[in-house]
């Protein structure tokens, strides 16, 4: 509950933030703090410097890019994703955001914080993999954009390295999206999640079965463009065997394999049914 000593700074711009993040070893960006502050309370991580991003307006908000793509500032909160008109263009975003934790956490927790912490039980990483999102990372040398499958590297580990800052996430055009999860109770931590997006073919990502979201590529291939219940279910068979999920108090590996198959199929069906 009690944090170790830490230094704090509150820049106004992305450039200032990057300057601070690169100038101090052990500096961490503080977005909504809904994961990081908890980790610090447990003293499981003790950054030397917290670079609070709350004043950086350019990191906030959702933009409809007009071509069907949606661009989301890293400091956009989950609550904003739920209510935002531009985000509404991709309705799965608000729908999944509304399943994250609770009102208080959604009010402060940000999309950038959610993906950068990349806790395997987080909802957004598998969703963004399925949506084929791309991640723009700013560094002192300029900006670069990486696809979702290159962004997530491990638990609390992403392509946004030391001295760098995730600034925005871009979702390409689409709309046939689905998301399913088994959680502890109605709204507890996720045990397994599955996200699917049908965009000239299925993209399916499974959460909680590895340190990073796992693409169900074989299942995607088997589905092809036949999204019928029977074909989707048949395609999901054997998915579990391709996974190497962790065993913990909430699920043995075999149970996660089973859930992955069931949820992946249901996510595809949900995507098919979305209007």
């Amino acid at each position, binding site marked *: 509950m009690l944090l170790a000593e830490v230094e704090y700074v509150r820049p106004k711009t992305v450039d200032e933030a990057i300057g601070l993040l690169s100038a101090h070893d052990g500096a961490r960006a503080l977005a909504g703090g809904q994961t990081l502050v908890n980790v610090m309370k447990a003293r499981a991580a003790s950054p030397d410097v917290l670079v609070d991003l709350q004043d950086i307006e350019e990191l906030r908000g959702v933009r409809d890019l007009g071509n069907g793509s949606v661009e989301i500032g890293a400091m956009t909160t989950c609550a904003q994703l739920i209510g935002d008109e531009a985000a509404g263009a991709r309705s799965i975003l608000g729908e999944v955001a509304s399943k994250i934790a609770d009102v208080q956490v959604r009010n402060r927790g940000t999309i950038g914080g959610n993906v950068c912490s990349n806790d395997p039980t987080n909802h957004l990483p598998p969703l963004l993999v399925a949506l084929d999102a791309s991640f723009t990372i700013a560094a002192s040398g300029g900006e670069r954009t990486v696809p979702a499958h290159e962004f997530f590297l491990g638990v609390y580990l992403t392509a946004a390295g030391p001295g760098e800052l995730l600034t925005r996430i871009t979702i390409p055009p689409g709309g046939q999206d689905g998301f399913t999860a088994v959680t502890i*109770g109605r709204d507890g931590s996720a045990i397994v999640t599955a996200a699917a997006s049908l965009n000239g073919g299925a993209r399916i990502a499974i959460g909680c079965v590895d340190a990073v979201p796992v693409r169900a590529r074989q299942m995607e291939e088997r589905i092809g463009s036949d999204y019928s219940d029977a074909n989707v279910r048949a395609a999901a068979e054997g998915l579990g065997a391709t996974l190497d999920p962790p065993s913990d*108090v909430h699920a043995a590996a075999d*149970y996660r394999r089973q859930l992955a198959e*069931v949820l992946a199929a249901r996510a595809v069906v949900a995507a098919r049914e979305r209007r």
Partner: protein
Amino acid sequence: MTETATHPIVVTPGETKVGFVGTSVPRKEDKRLVQGEGVFFDDVKRHGMGYVHFVRSPYAHAKILSIDVSKALELGGVYGTLTGEEVAILTDPFFELSVKPGADIKDYALAVRRVRHVGEPVAAVVASSRELARDAAELVEVEYEPLPVLTTGEQSLGSDVILHEDAGSNVVWQGVFDWGDYEGAVAEADHVVRIERLHFDRFSSTPLECAGVLVEYNRGTGQWTMYGNHQMPGIGAIWMAPALRTGVDKLRFVSQDIGGAFGNKICLHPQYVACCLLARKLNRPVQWTEWRTDQHTANAHGNERTFLDIEVPVKADGTLLGLSVRAIDDCGAYPRYEPLGCIIWAQVTPGCYRWRNIRVDFTQVCTNKSPVSPNRGYSRMQHLWLTERVVDLVAHELELDPVEVRKRNYVRAEEMPYETPNGCVYDSGDYARALDIALELIGYDDLDAKRVDAESRRKLLGFGIGSTLDSGTNNFGQSTLLNPELQFSGNNEVATVKLDIFGEIVVTLGTVPQGQGHETTAAQVVADILNVTPEDVTVRPGHDTYWNSNAGFSGTYASQFAVTGLGAVKGAADKLAYEIKRVAAGVFGVTPDDIELAEGQARLKANAEAAIPFMGIGAIVNANNAVLPEDVRDVTLNCRYVYVPPFQLPDKERKFGNLTLTYASQVHVCLLEIDPETGVYEIVDYAAVDDCGTRIHPQIVDGQVHGATAQALGAATHEIFAYDEEGNLLTPNFYDYHVPHALDMPPLKTGYLESASPFTPLGAKGMGEGGGAGIHAVCAALQDALASHGKPTVWRSCNPYHQVWEYLREPKRLVEVKAQ
């Protein structure tokens, strides 16, 4: 969706209510609490106080080779430290309740030379801020030598690894209970149903406020004041005073508001003693605030119990003749309140049923896990779960209707008061009627249609019953069945009611309220006796042992306030009423019988104009007593009453006798639907019918029913303190230990019966614990739902989704029926 419908049904209306008892008057506690003006222990601050942080063991079992606090002491803002070595010199071990081998266990405020569970305090640091205290605690260097770890009761029983070398055994207590004629029951039976194993999992009620205390030491008088949330100070002092080598009266326990306790705040004496030593050593007030992770890891778990080799002789029609079982109770690293749990269950030996021949071989052992502590439904809940699983499995195995089997075997209303095979007396109740009400509430007649509907949605519907008892008001004499040397028996509680100089009526309780509405219900009782309104009655919030309105068993536990607490309030108010009448009679020159109390006055029955307001009575006695006739000068208007329930010592040889005074009953029914592909299930309908005798404040009773139901449903579905093989707790926080959230709660329908207790002052029964009916009902509903999937035995009390999926994947049957 969870639309809540509450349809209370009055089946047996009590007598016509006159007065405030029986009505839901506004709660006195609420105004301060809804404004954030309650005073919980962590709200109390003192000048110059220090904050305590415990250094805790990362190992489940290890020798402590060395502790070095020097780096911690060098840190600015650190006031001092305490280690186990100091504790071993400054205190004596806490007394143990058990006979040998448990009697020889040495338990101190901090670990001495060995740690026995993860999170066990090994040292304490005090600093000027919370954060600094933690910083310093991290600088304390402890060298450990890990030892082999025991994490299950069965493991402990068969192991050469011994947790407490002084005791020489992992067994705390062992005994056989044998009532009736079990062999005769087997001979008479058509079948014997054998169940290999049932397991009641660890969980706890996890009160939202964790434990803690602020301790001040008075150097001049050698007296400690503890502003904390200990819920049973009488017992706390009995543990602490000898350990601290001081008198019980040197220990002053104070609490105002407590953020829930549920039994989990009974065993706080180790941490309290550590804080007392620190306050004395450092000569400054110190405050310890337990954090959630500490609470889960190292404070108070409910008892975990494994039932083996269960045998149930039955007739072909489902009539239960007997029960034989071997129980292994895992009490964690230190027994503390144990082995009382080894006997407390016997209050409800036959559950709700007419079993006459029961044999229980009971063993309690230590393991390298958190110590247990009483937890809502303490020890009876585990046993009631066993009886309810057994009855349910018998019905399923013999392909009999679970409703009919229960009704055939329930103790009947006309048999009340009913003496159980071990001499307990069920005071009143009508379990079959309660079941009927519950069935009606969930539309049981349409069960087949509901099943078909669920199947059409690819769901498995399950229907389950949980019948249970909430026994209240302990006879502490039951402790002598464990240890004949113990000098405990009966029970007591105190209340004081006074009339002050300006006519204020002030009640002082001995209990330690934690949300049960004691201020309100005490005011109702007093108002009815003095013929005033509850608003006219001030009830001091909380507890202070220096109010001298408490006795050895004072506290709030064991579902007893409505009996002991209010019994004492009634006694004290009756005394005060009589004193008021005597004063008035003295003034008017009549007898007390000629006086009545009405409208805040003592007046002549014959002439209402001849009246003295209570203010006048208060003034005469307190400030103007020279006008009083000689024969009423003994009046103090400050009336203390000790309520003592009518108990005798039980028979130690036969382990026979009345172990508790009242038996509230609950019958719950549950409808749930399982998704067979995932094991995920949802409770789709639920009814709870409660019978706690006379309902003093119906709204408060309903609130207790709701809360006990929620806790039971949590325990049935997700709440489990699970450990890995190294003895690490896997659910140390509310992420992994998922308690019900608002969205988790199913629609809850409630009904009630009122079977007044013939044994209590107000006809009321204690009812705060609930007996875990929700756990029984969910297990039974899962059993029913899985009947079409290979009839696996629902053998655990906590069945999260993955467990249900295990049942589906590999339907393990642990039951067999042997024809005789």
